[in-house]
């Protein structure tokens, strides 16, 4: 590290104390919202509707969870989300690493062109073409299908370049000599390259898992059939607008918060891994070519 002896002057001491106080303040601004959410989620229906500073459940109860999961059937969008996330992430990782593999092969004609081809897609903000994308999905008959959500972001330039950066540390001669021995490219890719880039795979998988789980705009645009709703859309209507005039449920605060907690759990479960790989990944991906 950059320092091996603490500073002893009184100014430095004061600064350290102030600094730690500041950090504590900052941390509480991050923790309190989540604490508040969890506390409310585990409060009873009526208690969650009363004012007060809630950092611990008021009248502990899981009513909120049973209401949102069973009666409002949040398990449907939850399962849809699981399907889209798992299938989408698997496909994304496979395709991105395949492309990454291709782009580190030496001596293939047109490689530069392919790289440019992929990089251009990164310069156009996807949101800006949401209407044409919507039209395309409509024309392909993909509206109201989970496939449309899996396809949205099936490959991304970012992941391709990331995988390429990871593959670059593998000597190109390996592939070349395997090819001499008559191995097919897919086999070389699957049995030699993939295992050597496990850190890269983990990074892309985690990135994709998080962004898939949180995927919002495509679901908002392409899905209107309630049985195909994904979690974020269901949550949006649960938390932000409950204007559905035909619902007979009383949606109390704990029900809303329980919905949020359910959406948080898978992400919190993978959090330790995310911490390990995210920074590395984004720096590699943002690497200037």
């Amino acid at each position: 590290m950059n320092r091996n002896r603490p500073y002893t002057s009184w100014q430095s001491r004061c600064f350290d104390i102030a600094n730690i106080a500041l950090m504590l303040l900052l941390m509480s601004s991050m923790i309190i919202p989540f604490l508040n959410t969890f506390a409310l989620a585990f409060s009873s229906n009526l208690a969650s509707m009363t004012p007060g500073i809630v950092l611990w459940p008021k009248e502990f109860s899981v009513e909120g969870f049973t209401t949102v999961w069973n009666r409002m059937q949040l398990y449907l969008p939850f399962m849809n989300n699981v399907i889209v996330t798992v299938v989408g992430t698997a496909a994304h990782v496979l395709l991105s690493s395949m492309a990454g593999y291709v782009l580190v092969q030496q001596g293939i004609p047109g490689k530069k062109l392919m790289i440019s081809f992929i990089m251009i897609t990164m310069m156009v903000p996807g949101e800006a073409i949401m209407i044409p994308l919507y039209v395309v999905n409509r024309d392909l008959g993909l509206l109201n299908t989970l496939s449309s959500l899996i396809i949205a972001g099936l490959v991304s330039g970012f992941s391709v370049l990331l995988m390429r950066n990871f593959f670059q540390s593998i000597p190109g001669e390996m592939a070349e000599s395997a090819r001499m021995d008559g191995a097919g490219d897919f086999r070389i890719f699957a049995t030699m390259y993939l295992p050597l880039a496990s850190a890269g795979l983990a990074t892309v998988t985690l990135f994709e898992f998080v962004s898939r789980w949180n995927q919002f705009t495509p679901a908002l645009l392409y899905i209107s059939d309630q049985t195909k709703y994904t979690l974020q859309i269901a949550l949006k209507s649960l938390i932000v607008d409950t204007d559905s005039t035909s619902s007979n449920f009383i949606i109390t605060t704990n029900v809303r918060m329980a919905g949020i907690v359910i959406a948080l759990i898978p992400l919190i479960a993978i959090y330790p891994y995310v911490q390990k790989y995210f920074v590395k990944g984004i720096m590699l991906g943002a690497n200037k070519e």
Partner: protein
Amino acid sequence: MKAIVKYRAVYLMMLPIIAYFLIFAYYPLVRGFVISFQQFRLIGDRPFVGLDNYAQVLKDSAFWDTFANTLIIGGSILAIGFIMPIALALLLNEVFASWFKKIVQMVVYLPHLFSWVVVGGMWIMMLSPDTGIVNQLLLALGAEKPIGFMSQEAYARPVMVFTAVWKEVGFTCILYLAAIVSINPSLYEAARIDGANRWHLVRYVTLPQLVSTMKVVLMLHVMSVLKMFDQIFVMRNGAIAGKVDVIMMYTYQKGILEFQIGMATAAGFLVILATLIITFVIRILIRYDEE
């Protein structure tokens, strides 16, 4: 030619990726570009109308309102979201106890993981003047009346900026921390021998070493200013819409809610154009490609 035959398996592997980008990136781009010159109707023919759609968008005061909102909100997020993480990373680096440092890192990073539906929803609830914890705290601290953060125009933009910074500050901070860790310790030693104090080390050793990370972060953020959507879509409401609706909201409203596919697409292309120009200018300004 021989090489192509030799590597046909490689090309085959690339095929699905190329196909995907062609159908879901290039084609929509081209298609959208065409539509932006058409009077796009659901049924019947779609005559070309030249630059009409663009002219209509540029004449629409609602477009300029959302444009201004985008610049004000996006610009503030860009500025504050740029400075805060650097300050935080530098301060955090001054903490000696490494366990404390780790805990802080772990905590501030958390909000980055969650979607805007979750984060926005949480803040809407917390800012509610009825039972929201923020107002409850203010009342406990002696405020007379709860504040309608989400319904009063004066608070609308600051709330958007604050929540956006809140969500991303930890993540960006950790990028800087990673860069700080990789600074060569001998630089600090040399500076100390020259008699540098604590502040000098930060100012003349750490900070200059972070410049390249700053550039990366700035580029990432600049490219996302104009495409802001999720956050606003989740957190807006009728009472504050005029102050917070951004350009992508305009596109969404025109295209999806008002049948004006032509206008919406034209607005989308103006955004693409603006993004390209801004990115290009910033790249030159910060000499992104040099070093």
